[in-house]
Structure formats: structure tokens, C-alpha cells
């Protein structure tokens, strides 16, 4: 890939503060992504296609879709995030940008935090924005769709943060894709359970505040701890080569 599509990070001066460095990494990741728009579109198309499989493969009955719709959308979003995780570090690893990031004087976990946030903006957020349309297609009612969007809004960043650990661990390995899924899906299960549990509670008319608070706690925990684990894993993977 040429230098034109992949701008480098320019942070070498140690006088750049950690926050400025995070901004730099974030802006660069956004720029790279928007220069390869197809990569942005692929997880979204995948999301739509997986959701399409269920009415066609299981049952197009309205009653079934109303009951299972939230779960289908959650599983599809989860798989779509999982599929996009490969991009999080792979290209930067291939062209050496990642090594430059590790060498920066700013703490690595902050730079990874910025990278993961950029990843969520590029994959998780579009999924949330697409959810209302697909929600209508699986016959969810308005209230359920709103709660579903809210859970995905809180839940997809958690998926990105946990996924960053797996992506960092499997960087540069053979068959990294399958391995990444094996490592990460067990850790995704609790998020999925609470995400769909919230929508189920909302559908029954029960208050969802407690569920959302718990998901918020997941998010805080993942955002504070996962970057450390991902940074440690990244250093291991880089020393591997």
C-alpha cells in the first residue's frame, strides 16, 4: 500500500502531550479508513446479510421475528464486529506503523484506547445507526427498537475493547481469524446476555434502568482495563516477529 493512502503518525516529539497524541492517532485512523471506504462498508453489508438469513432460514413468521429479532440483531452485530477486528492492527502491523506507535514516548495503552475508539466509530456506530431499519424489518415495536439501539450503543464499544485484546494477541499468527474468534467469543457472551436481556425486559414492560446501568459498568470496566491488556499483548506480538 502506498504512502498516499496510509498517512503516517507524526508524534515523534516527546513534548506532545498524551491527549494530543491520542487525538493524532484517532485522526489518522479515521483518515486511513475514509481513504478505503469499501472496508468501512463490508462489516455493514455483512450485518445486513446475517440478519437476512434468519427470516429466510428459520421462519418469516411475525411472531417468531418479534421474539427473536433483538437476539438476531445482537448476534449479527457481534459477528460483524468480530469480523472487522482483523483490521484493527493488521495493516499497521504490516507496514510498520505499529512499531512506531509502540516506540512513542506516550503510554501505549492510551494510544490503543484512541485506536479502539476510532475502530468503534467506524464499525460499531454505523451498526447502531443501521439497527432501526433492520429492527423494523424484523417487526420489532418502537420501544424495543429504541432500547435495542441503546444497548448496542453501550455494548458495541465493549465488544471493540475486548476484541482489541484478542486482535493484539493473535497479531501475525497463522489462521489468526479463526483463533481470534475462539479467544474472544467466550468473553463476548456476558455482553450478549445482558444486551438481549435488556430488550427482553423492555418488551415485557419491565424497567430497564438496572440492566443499562450494568451494561454501563461493563463499558467502564472494558474501557479502563482492556487497553492495558491489549498494550501488553501488542508488545508480546511485536517481539514475536
Amino acid at each position, binding site marked *: 500500500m502506498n504512502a498516499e493512502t496510509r498517512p503516517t503518525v507524526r508524534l515523534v516529539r516527546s513534548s506532545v502531550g498524551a491527549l494530543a497524541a491520542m487525538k493524532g492517532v484517532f485522526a489518522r485512523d479515521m483518515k486511513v479508513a475514509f481513504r478505503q471506504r469499501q472496508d468501512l462498508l463490508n462489516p455493514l453489508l455483512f450485518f445486513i446479510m446475517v440478519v437476512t438469513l434468519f427470516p429466510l432460514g428459520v421462519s418469516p413468521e411475525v411472531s417468531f421475528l418479534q421474539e427473536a429479532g433483538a437476539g438476531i440483531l445482537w448476534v449479527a452485530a457481534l459477528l460483524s464486529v468480530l469480523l472487522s477486528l482483523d483490521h484493527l492492527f493488521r495493516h499497521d502491523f504490516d507496514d510498520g506503523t505499529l512499531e512506531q506507535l509502540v516506540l512513542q514516548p506516550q503510554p501505549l495503552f492510551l494510544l490503543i484506547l484512541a485506536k479502539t475508539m476510532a475502530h468503534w466509530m467506524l464499525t460499531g456506530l454505523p451498526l447502531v445507526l443501521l439497527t432501526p431499519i433492520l429492527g423494523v424489518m424484523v417487526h420489532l415495536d418502537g420501544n424495543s427498537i429504541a432500547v435495542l439501539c441503546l444497548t448496542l450503543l453501550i455494548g458495541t464499544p465493549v465488544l471493540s475493547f475486548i476484541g482489541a*485484546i484478542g486482535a493484539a*494477541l*493473535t497479531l501475525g*499468527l497463522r*489462521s489468526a481469524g479463526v483463533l481470534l474468534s*475462539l479467544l474472544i467469543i467466550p468473553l463476548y457472551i456476558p455482553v450478549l446476555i445482558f444486551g438481549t436481556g435488556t430488550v427482553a425486559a423492555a418488551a415485557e414492560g419491565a424497567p430497564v434502568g438496572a440492566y443499562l446501568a450494568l451494561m454501563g459498568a461493563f463499558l467502564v470496566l472494558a474501557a479502563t482495563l482492556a487497553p492495558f491488556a491489549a498494550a501488553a*499483548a501488542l508488545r508480546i506480538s511485536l517481539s514475536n516477529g
Partner: protein
Amino acid sequence: MWRIFHKLGSPKWFFGIAARFMPWLLAGGLLLLMAGIIWGLAFAPEDYLQGNSYRIIFIHVPSAFMAQSVYIMMACAAVVTLVWRMKLADVFVKAVAPVGLVLTFLALFTGAVWGKPTWGTWWIWDARLTSMLILLFLYGGVIALDRAINDEKSAARAVAVLVLVGVVNIPIIKYSVEWWNTLHQPATFKLTEKPSMPAEMWVPLLLSVLGLYLIFGWLACVRMQAEILVRERRTRWVKTFVTTGKV
């Protein structure tokens, strides 16, 4: 104390020590396990509600208990690997992960066999069962990651990070029966309370848990010795051991 700590870092020293302890671990473990299981299966009183089918707990509880203990031990070893880079800790994680996998499977399997007559179903998506299934996946992930990385040192540290991340599941398993209203009953043993069943039932159960602990210790030693021999195959002491049988 520091001398022991330094010695623990030496695979050769461990190899010798393990060889000395192993017969005792095996003998003690077999004795306790046999005593616990025979007592439990043949002599313990019948349950007034479940009849004889409850007797599977003498296998189910020890294996479920060990499946979680092994993961906690692995997590402790993972910390040692990351902080002190001790070779033996990593050998331990690599050696016991498959044992943990088998124990978790055994716990799930015996649970299913017991669930059929008691709950009327082999499997139910209950919090405790699901979190044990996640534990099974975690063990599988640890083994898969270890096999995928060729470089020994990177594999050790990467696996250590993964094991530590997976620790979040252990409190979920432990408290799943208390946090959620589930079909699975609460913990059989608690340190702070008297067991809720008669002594003729819990004493054999305790014996088999202890027995399985010792057997696990023996198994860990065997597997660690094998792993040490492979890793140190180019050193002189392994060559003399292989040819003369002396450490």
C-alpha cells in the same frame, strides 16, 4: 525464602523434587479418592428426595471444583510468568490447561447425566451451566493460542495475558447461583458454614475432593516433567537423565 524462589526457577531442580513427591501424591490421591468414591457410592445414605441418582455428586462436585481451582492456579502462574518471567510457571500453565479442559468437560457431562433424572433434561441454559461452558471455551482458547505461537517465550506471555483476561469468568461461575435465580443449587461446601447435608454424605465428598486435588498434583508433575524434558532436551542433565536415569 528467596533461595527457594530462585530454585523454583530451575527446571532441573523441580524435576528432581517432583520425582520425589510424585509417588506420595499418587498413593495419597488414589487412597482418598477410592475411599471417598466407594464410601459415597456404596455406603452413604440415600437421598430422601432424589434416591440414588444424587450419588453422582461424588464425581460431579470434585471435578467441577477442580475445574475452577485449576483455572485460578493457572491465573496465579500467569502473573508469575508476566512479572518474574519464571520458566516453571509457564510450564505449569501449558501442562495443566488440557487437564482443566477435561475436568470441565467431566463436570458438565456428569451434570447432564444427573440433570436428566432430576430436572428432566440433559441441558438447560442456566447461568451456572452456561458459565461452566464458557470456562470450557476459555480452556480451549488457551490451548489453541499456545499451539498457534511457535516462539516459546512469546507463547508463554501471550497465554498468560489471555488467562488473566479470562479470570473475569471465575467470579461469575462462583456467584451465578446466588446472583441469578437458577435451577442449579448453591455451593455444596462453604468455608464459613456447616454443610447442609449429614456427615455421612459430606465426609466422603470432602475425601474425594481432596483425593482429586492430590491426583491433580501428580498429573501436573507428570505433565510438567514431560514438558521440561522437551524444552531442555539440549542440556547436559537431560542427556545424562535419559541415558542413566539419574538427575
